[in-house]
């Protein structure tokens, strides 16, 4: 699951990727014609909308792509950098940049691109940009108030608008397509070209097909999380699903003998977990199963993951989801934690002492009921496992 940094790709290798990504970035910008200021400002005077076309096509493709990766469970959006929203600095900073665009003829990325192929005005522009950063840095105490005001956190626009992200992306795409048609009409009028604004060349056709395939695949393959949660609502399937089962005595034995392979995954609420938790256990919520960071715990080699919950049905549901997600070495506790508490921790004198087996079990349980509460007490001091999620640091 993405992002691949920092687990699969290390910090140093990431720099190599930065270089490769940069080379492709520079090459695409240059090929698109972003290395000339006349083409760049054309968008503001209506004679050349190349920048707008490239920019919004890229934005929509990336928006749909990120949506698709999240939809199919390939990218954990909680770990991805979402630009923070500071309302006033975003608006005023943006307006200043807009003025800079029209006065200077570039933006930072395109100026570097243009300077690389020898544009002298771009080199001067970069010098000015460095001065601008210096100005901000030196005058920082003056601007800090504005810079840090109206911090709205990291909202995403569909949340701000209160609509679903797919609806937002669809609306955005439709608006962009209408804008593309509109600017073609404007551009043709200003340049005196008589040509239909919409033409079905292979390029447009190919891009449209690509978009449709992504959209259709999202319909055909529903979101992983939603479909799995729906699947475990079917009780007959949940009860007939083949799962490895661990008895309460087995679990008690593994706890008493301090089995290093044992790993308990506790699916009760955080409150219940805080009140009472077994040694070697980690608190999990259903959402954690779909996240990248907590899942490292489930993927540790040679560990046996025992899923526990208040009752066996909950354990079964969680274990089925985990198995469907491809995790191995998953077991569930027979009868759930309730059975464990009743049979081991709150052991009552039993009448079943007739058979040899019954007597042995009882003797073991008596011993376990003395040892395990002590282990729980010792464990308490260390507190529950805290899972920290860290977003990637990004931005300009």
């Amino acid at each position, binding site marked *: 699951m993405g992002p691949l940094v920092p687990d699969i790709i290390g910090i140093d290798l990431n720099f190599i990727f930065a270089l490769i990504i940069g080379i492709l970035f520079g090459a*695409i910008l240059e090929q698109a014609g972003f290395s000339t200021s006349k083409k760049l400002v054309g968008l503001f005077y209506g004679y050349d909308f190349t920048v707008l076309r*490239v920019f919004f096509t*890229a934005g929509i*493709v990336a928006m749909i792509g990120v949506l698709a990766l999240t939809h199919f469970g390939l990218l954990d959006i909680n770990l991805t*950098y979402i630009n923070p929203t500071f309302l006033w600095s975003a608006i005023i900073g*943006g307006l200043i940049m807009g*003025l800079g665009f029209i006065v200077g003829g570039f933006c930072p990325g395109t100026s570097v691109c243009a300077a690389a192929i020898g544009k002298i005005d771009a080199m001067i522009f970069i010098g000015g940009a460095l001065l601008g*950063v210096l100005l901000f840095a030196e005058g920082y105490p003056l601007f800090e108030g504005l810079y840090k005001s109206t911090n709205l956190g990291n*909202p995403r626009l569909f949340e701000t608008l209160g609509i679903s992200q797919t609806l937002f992306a669809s609306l955005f795409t439709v608006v962009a397509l209408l804008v593309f048609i509109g600017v073609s009409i404007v551009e043709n009028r200003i340049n005196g070209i008589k040509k239909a604004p919409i033409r079905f060349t292979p390029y447009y056709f190919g891009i449209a097909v690509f978009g449709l395939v992504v959209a259709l695949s999202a319909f055909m393959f529903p979101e992983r999380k939603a479909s799995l949660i729906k699947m475990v609502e079917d009780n007959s399937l949940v009860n007939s699903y083949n799962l490895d089962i661990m008895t309460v005595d087995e679990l008690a034995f593994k706890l008493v003998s301090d089995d290093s392979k044992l790993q308990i995954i506790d699916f009760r609420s955080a409150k219940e977990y805080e009140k009472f938790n077994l040694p070697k256990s980690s608190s999990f919520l259903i959402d954690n199963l779909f996240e990248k960071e907590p899942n490292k715990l489930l993927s540790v080699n040679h560990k046996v993951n025992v899923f526990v919950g208040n009752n066996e049905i909950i354990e079964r549901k969680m274990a089925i989801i985990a198995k469907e997600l491809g995790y191995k070495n998953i077991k569930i506790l027979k009868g759930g934690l309730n059975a464990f508490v009743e049979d081991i921790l709150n052991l009552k004198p039993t009448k079943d002492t007739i058979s040899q087996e019954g007597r042995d079990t009882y003797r073991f349980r008596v011993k376990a009921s003395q040892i395990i509460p002590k282990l729980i007490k010792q464990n308490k001091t260390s507190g529950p496992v805290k899972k920290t999620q860290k977003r990637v640091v990004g931005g300009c």
Partner: protein
Amino acid sequence: MENSKYMNPYLAGLLLGLLLIATIYITGRGLGASGALKSFTVASVETVAPSHTQATKFYKEYSGEHTGSPLMNWLVFEMVGVVIGAFISGLISNRLNFKLEKGPRATTRIRVIGAILGGMLWGFGSQLGRGCTSGAALSGMAVMSTGGIITMFAIFGGGYGFAYFFRKFWL
């Protein structure tokens, strides 16, 4: 305007979009440009006046957020890549030459002053707005960040709003 020399804009957009998806999938962050300018500025000031950076708030906050040399930064490596990539592209398409580009009515003097001032406005604005066209607007759009999209509208809105007053520069 049809120009056969350049790539079809929608194809370029598609490629740029795919590159951005790959970047987010691999690194968890988008593309950027102005951050590299910031790193470069901080590194320069650190070299010229190290005592100044230790006493000034902006640099202190910067070093609080970043470890190591300011030049050991993802965006710096990325921008080095941009220089290489653009150069190769210019070489292939035969566009390498030293040239000062300006509007038909603009003098060299106006163009030079415009480039410096425009650059300064970008340097300043991108710090205030937490990113430029790449880092805030494009990458922000990809992850549907409210702030990024607001910055994007402000940049383009500002461009259109001010365009009339600077038409002598370009038309």
